[in-house]
């Protein structure tokens, strides 16, 4: 099935099997490998992207369901060579070690801060329930999101 979507502002169109997952469209067909696959049961959140502005696990959707959608991935977060404040916060606060969960964490954190511009620690932890990290014990991820919240201009 012909499936088209805009990813990070660039149009992508491919003929796909109906069973193709959105994450595989992004990784294999669009060649954007920053979005990762860490599980097969939608627990780990490494594949989190933004679909029409909503954080979504791209392994839970078929590519054909995203036909016509506006997608943002980790590769689209930095603008004009400048890191997004959440990316910068993860770097500043050592919110990553192996880096595998990081793209999904950052995409989830972006949605989190839209919902709660000044989140409490509990809100951060609760909102990150859908993203697993095996390296950091979450301590510095929480710190990074707190730091990003301080740095990001209130909307």
């Amino acid at each position, binding site marked *: 099935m012909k499936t088209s979507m805009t990813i990070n502002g660039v149009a992508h169109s491919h003929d796909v099997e109906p069973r193709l997952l959105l994450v595989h469209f992004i990784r294999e067909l669009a060649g954007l490998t920053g979005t990762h696959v860490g599980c097969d049961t939608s627990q780990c959140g490494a594949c989190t992207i933004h679909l029409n502005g909503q954080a979504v696990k791209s392994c839970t959707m078929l590519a054909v369901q995203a036909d016509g959608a506006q997608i943002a991935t980790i590769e689209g977060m930095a603008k004009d060579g400048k890191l997004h404040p959440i990316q910068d916060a993860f770097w500043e606060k050592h919110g990553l*070690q192996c880096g595998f*969960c990081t793209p999904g964490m950052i995409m989830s954190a972006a949605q989190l801060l839209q919902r709660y511009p000044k989140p409490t620690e509990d809100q951060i932890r609760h909102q*990150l329930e859908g993203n697993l990290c095996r390296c950091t*014990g979450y301590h510095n991820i929480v710190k990074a999101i707190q730091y990003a919240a301080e740095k990001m201009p209130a909307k």
Partner: protein
Amino acid sequence: MATARLLGASIKRREDPRFITGKGHYTDDLKLSGMTYATFVRSPHAFAGIKKIDTSKALKHPGVVAVFTGKDMTGVNSLPCGWLLPDLKVPPHMPLASDAARYVGDPVAIVIAETQTAALDAAELVAVDWDVKPSVTRTDKAAAKGAPALHEVAPDNVAFRWQIGDAAATEAAFKSAAISVKKRIVNQRLVANALEPRACVARYEDATGDWTLWVTSQNPHVHRLLMTAFVLGIPEHKVRVIAPDVGGGFGSKIFLYNEETVCTWATKQIKRPIRWTANRRESFQTDCHGRDHVTDVELALSKEGKILGLRVKTTANLGSYLSTFAPAVPTYLYGTLLNGVYEMGAIHCEVTGVFTNTTPVDAYRGAGRPEAAYLIERIVDAGAAALKMDPAELRKKNFIPKFDSGYQTKVALTYDSGNYGAAFDKLLGMLDYKKFRSDQQGGRSSGKLLGVGFSTYIEACSIAPSKVVGSLGAQAGLWESGTVRVHPTGKVTVFTGSHSHGQGHETTFAQLVGDHLGIPMDDVEVVHGDTGIVPFGMGTYGSRSASVGGTALVMSMDKIKEKGKLIAAHLLEANAKDMEYVGGEFVVKGSPDKKIPFGQVALTAYVPHKYPDGVEPGLEATSFYDPSNFCFPFGAHACVVEVDQDTGHVKILRYLAVDDVGNVINPMIVDGMVHGGIAQGVAQALWEGAVYDEESGQLVTGSLMDYALPKADMLPMYETGRTETPTPVNPLGVKGAGETGTIASTPAVMNAVVDALSGLGVDHIEAMPLTAERVWKTIQAAKSKK
């Protein structure tokens, strides 16, 4: 040019920009022209003979390139076991099983196709005629009479019996003891669950006869050596193994596995590159598991609370086959740590390693040391309870006093340096222990169950020297390599045989080299993970990279400096013996204005016009460092919990850690590793556990829906502190920081929960994880006893 001290600074990681922008290069990201995609046909049974495998339908499926079974892999040998204990039974472990499958997930065929989906579809069409047999998965039943035997070489399922310590002295200690306590301790099976699943891309190039294997490995040279020399019989020098960005290991990516071996063999058959990536179900079923001990432990105490003796009988589940380093984990990495941080009268430990129809068990973060620490810290608390003594007091009475070098334990090891009481005192201060006990009393009167648990642990890392570990059964050396290549412009590339998969070596090694050479760390590039460009190295596990890999780099830098002095002395018309290297400059001692910067010496080495006779051009050095001893980090952790009496739910109120890892290169990175380690150890105590169905041998906890990996809202912020006791073993004084958190935290949590329930008469809980159900049952049993 003077630079600020780089060692000891919390410098942001240079690897992060690529990871936070999605530009990392993990194995599954790789796409080569002509790529094919593989999937494995695996046993759905715990134990079944293979009568026949029919691949004909799969081969006809559109898009299928090839299907191979074990029978096709002629001339291929067993995956090797790299640690041979005396009388160890070593059964064959073929890359594709062809006689029988011995655990759920055992691979029996590979299907290779033009697309991943075609491979998956075709794998469904491979028909295996199974002869299903009764299986055994339980550790305590594997060696029982009548248990199904997995291997001809081990009819009783016993792989080895091993012991350490002094049985007679221990027996005498128990006879003289005022009191003794005996407990059964089950250290459950865990799954490492690195977030990146295992993967490989194998490419054979027909025109040159070269292979390249990209693989999720913690030690690419070890992978190459084992695969080429032991299994496939192909020339080592024609195979390049690259471990690119690797998304976590925790031990599970040390070992040579079936899948990369089969893909490396198969790429030559089809003359096209092959990519295989595990899905999470395969990770659960086939990544080596960790722990899985059943132990009876006894502690003998004097009435004053001195530890007189420790007796340990452990059955260790090795799984279905011997993984690469499996026999070392429950023996030399476990029994030798049973002295803990205490003066002990006598120790005796017996371990029986058994085969079961389960995933092979090998090193998982800590590997043997968490099992030892858990055992000691739990039985010490049980001993304190039996003596009605405060567990902090009992620990203080028994700590080995501060020493700077050489404490001989009762179980073969010689500790390097330690100050155990100081770490514990610091912890008690952070905790405000007295206040906690008073809060606890106050809580009890209102039905609130508060508890604190301690863990004063020791850890052994940078396992060495090679000749000693060789005498104990290791089939490998345990040194590390480090090359320092100074370029003509004075910029430096270093090549380390260790491997980073989250540890931040690209940053810490650049700090180390920049600091030692007195040059900006931005002038230092760190290269690792590629057998094509890095000298043979042993890789990263056992918290060895800084202490062993870092020291190899220091040795190479020393050689660079010595050669630089010859060149500088010649340029300055001075005597090389009068030269010293200070802050990035070669200086004539006593004449601070007579000096030459590092960069000029580098250029001279490559443009040797004005050059000392007899000195080779170029400025590069390689060193191989084989440590004289292990390093022994230590520390003290405390966990404060509240247990809900009605539901059994455990809530962590505080988690405190004081770790002593020797000198620290980058405190931010060390703290990060401690955090992550704590999370994994806490998770063992409270949530994680691999469970097999006893009847069917199925792995019940085979997905992230069933195996409780901790989430952000299950864990607290950690309060960390540090003492620094440098090791005399290496010139950096660093000990190792990758595993302390995991080793320390599990007993701290368990002891906290037992402490919370102590008012109900609970002095021990046999098994983990401490799910609400298990804790609730413990509470009910204690109440019904009262």
